[in-house]
């Protein structure tokens, strides 16, 4: 094994084994309890609001390419898009999905088509529903603001990896009176969302989105594994900090192995 990666490999294997264990339990009906996540609960209300007002839902599943580290966040955003598209199909609400990454565009289009097909509304899918706006950050923000203003979107849902354009989109949504639900694991943008959005999903809450909304047992099982991973991390931090405080660096040396 490559030097300096043994402990990492051990944790990696244990973590995945925990995930497999909980997924197996979940398949036979032993689901862990999941706390309420207000931001995700608000999605149904947001779409309901858009339906009543007869105005579109504007959805942005993140802005980065699918071959970057942000891909996991964008996949989380696409999982929620699947749920949103099913609801807009069910209630005949207009949907506008804005894409900034070329590699995400075909995926988002397929998700919307699949969702509408499952609701028996395949004929309602329009090309304008999923649009590639621009991969240039502020051109994308400008185009997004333009859609929000010209179509007077009633609800804006933004879940995925975002950068500086997040502030513009969220504030722009507030200026047209839209309800905003936003979520990202990118720490630089979380404060903007928390300050300016009606509902915010912070950090790994966006990864819980797909599980929470779909009620898929396997994905819910994964949440338990994530929580165990966090508990182990906390234990290591606390024990390691105490050990280092008293001059013992063996935990650090072991983690570096």
């Amino acid at each position, binding site marked *: 094994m490559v030097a300096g990666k043994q402990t990492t490999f051990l944790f990696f294997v244990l973590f995945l084994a925990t995930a497999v264990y909980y997924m197996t339990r979940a398949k036979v009906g032993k689901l862990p309890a999941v706390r309420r996540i207000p931001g995700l609960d608000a999605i149904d209300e947001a779409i309901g609001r858009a339906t009543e007002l007869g105005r579109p839902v504007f959805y942005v599943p993140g802005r*980065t*390419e699918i*071959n*970057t*580290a*942000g891909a996991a966040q964008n996949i989380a955003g696409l999982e929620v898009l699947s749920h949103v598209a099913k609801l807009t199909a069910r209630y005949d609400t207009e949907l506008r999905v804005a894409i900034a990454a070329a590699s995400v565009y075909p995926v988002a289009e397929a998700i919307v088509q699949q969702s509408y097909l499952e609701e028996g509304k395949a004929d309602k899918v329009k090309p304008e529903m999923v649009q590639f706006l621009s991969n*240039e*950050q*502020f051109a994308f923000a400008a185009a997004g603001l333009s859609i929000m203003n010209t179509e007077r979107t009633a609800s804006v849902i933004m879940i995925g*990896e975002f*950068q*500086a354009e997040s502030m513009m989109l969220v504030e722009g949504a507030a200026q047209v009176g839209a309800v905003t639900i936003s979520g990202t694991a*990118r*720490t*630089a*943008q979380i404060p903007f969302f928390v300050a300016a959005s009606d509902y915010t999903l912070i950090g790994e809450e966006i990864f819980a989105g797909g599980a929470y909304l779909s009620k898929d047992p396997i994905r819910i099982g994964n949440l338990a594994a994530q929580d165990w991973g966090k508990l182990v991390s906390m234990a290591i931090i606390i024990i390691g900090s105490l050990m280092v405080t008293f001059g013992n660096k063996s935990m650090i040396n072991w983690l570096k192995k």
Partner: protein
Amino acid sequence: MNALKWFGDLDKRWLYLLLLLVVVFPLLRPLGIPIDVTASTSQFIAAVDKLAPGDRMLLVFDYSIGGGPDVDPQAQVVLAHALSRGVRVVEVAFVDTGLNYAVKTVELWESKGKVYGTDIICLGYATGVETAISAFAQNISAVFPTDVRGKPIGSYPIMQGLKTAADFKLITEFATGIPGPAEWIRQVVTRFKVPLGCGVVAVMGPQNVPYLQSGQLVGLLGGGLKSAAEYEIAVKMPGAATAAMDAQSLGHLMIVLFVILGNLLFLVERQERRAAKVGGVRA
């Protein structure tokens, strides 16, 4: 109270105009507010100072046009500092718009007497973000067989002996998003143990401080334009960043004032609502 309500009802365009005037004024009449050099900037300077004449440093232009005014001054002053010490600089970009900054920078230094291919070189842009960085780190010539001018990189003196990222004495990356410090730490620092210093836009500064504290970064210019100004002051090369600091200071002050007034208004309105509720119950 009335003044606060007037502020709350004011058309936001008046606020924009006020902000514009406050930011433009010190650009025309500088105030000369003193600038302190922070520890993270000093660490970055020390990392460049450790390089000996002839050492090769990689300078990565990973910034977009939007964040360019924040980050480009950082890249320019670090480059100037390195070149002034006789360090040889290899430029590369993993963001398409970064390539234009890289090419302009090379042309600028050529006009100042630096020799292309010996003192400085621009390899070009590689698409693929983190996968491109990973591939580059493992084999430079596989990703850049030729430089931005179309010649094989092996024909340049500066590229002799450079096979992987480990062959650089220092890597400095300037970013406004992705790829950023995290990608370089994952693909280069962790694998090849090369010292990495990063400059980022101010909004990305806080999220990269953990990497500085853990030693994965040898320096961090995390304050955007302010870090560039600190660097310029510290190495005695004042430039565009230093000139813009007064405007930034007043702009910050204005935003803080808006926040404070907005909160005072909120408190007043909350008091009035509570009073109305109590009054309603009594009635």
